[in-house]
């Protein structure tokens, strides 16, 4: 039997993979992909809670799914803007490696 805890566990593992990717990788595009993994891990736990918490009619709580819809929309806009920034940066500095981009580093 699959429980709510199983979904939360899988979502936590996916979030940790994305978190590790942001900390370990030095390529801006891979870091960006890891951010997407973390967003999707949050979406998975939202949908799992929406399915778990049934309302008075015995239906899933669709407010959670509407929230996931908004997150996906914002994430799509964020990917477009972020990749445009990466392209502008690459045009200026000829690199997407974060150790070459340290002007703001103390």
């Amino acid at each position, binding site marked *: 039997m699959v429980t709510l805890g199983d979904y939360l566990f899988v979502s936590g593992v996916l979030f940790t993979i994305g978190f590790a990717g942001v900390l370990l990788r030095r390529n801006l595009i891979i870091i960006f992909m890891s951010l997407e993994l973390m967003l999707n891990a949050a979406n*998975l736990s939202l949908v799992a809670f929406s399915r778990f918490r049934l309302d008075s009619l015995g239906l899933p709580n*669709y407010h959670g799914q509407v929230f996931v819809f908004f997150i996906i929309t914002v994430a799509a806009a964020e990917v477009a803007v972020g990749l445009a920034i990466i*392209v502008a940066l690459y045009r200026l500095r000829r690199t997407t490696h974060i150790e070459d981009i340290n002007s703001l580093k103390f």
Partner: protein
Amino acid sequence: MSPLFFWIASALMLIFGAAVIINRNPVASALSLVVSFLGLAALFMSLDAFFIGIIQVLVYAGAVMVLFLFIIMLLDLRAEERRRINIGAFAGGVAVAIVFFAQLYLVIGQLRTAKLPFAALPATSGDDVHRVGLLLFGNYNLPFQIIGVLILVATVGVIVLSKRELR
């Protein structure tokens, strides 16, 4: 919602999610991300969220990944593969990730409701597109319009950012 299906979809999602950060080649990472998102869409469908599952495939596995692959091929990132890894930063990153996951695992273990199985849905529950649509255009109409404006702003911003000379 059979346990076998759940574990196959989760294993697919997690293995290819790990492949995203292990692969040295950005194109291989992007393709692993597509498979990982397809596994996630299968998990959404196993939770009876068919609308979200379809949106996941269309938006992420379709549009967003095409954008990623397009940018990777535009920038020609092959030189990045030969970098050496900084051992100290690597060990620190792994340690922080493990500590974070241990905390998350303990919290889920403490949660009493997490051990309960999902209750069965009534037979008439297949119309989740209808119900999500009613909420979206009823309760959440204002946020929905704001999201539309946000996407317009993002579109204009991307066009401005990709102009050759920023003023």
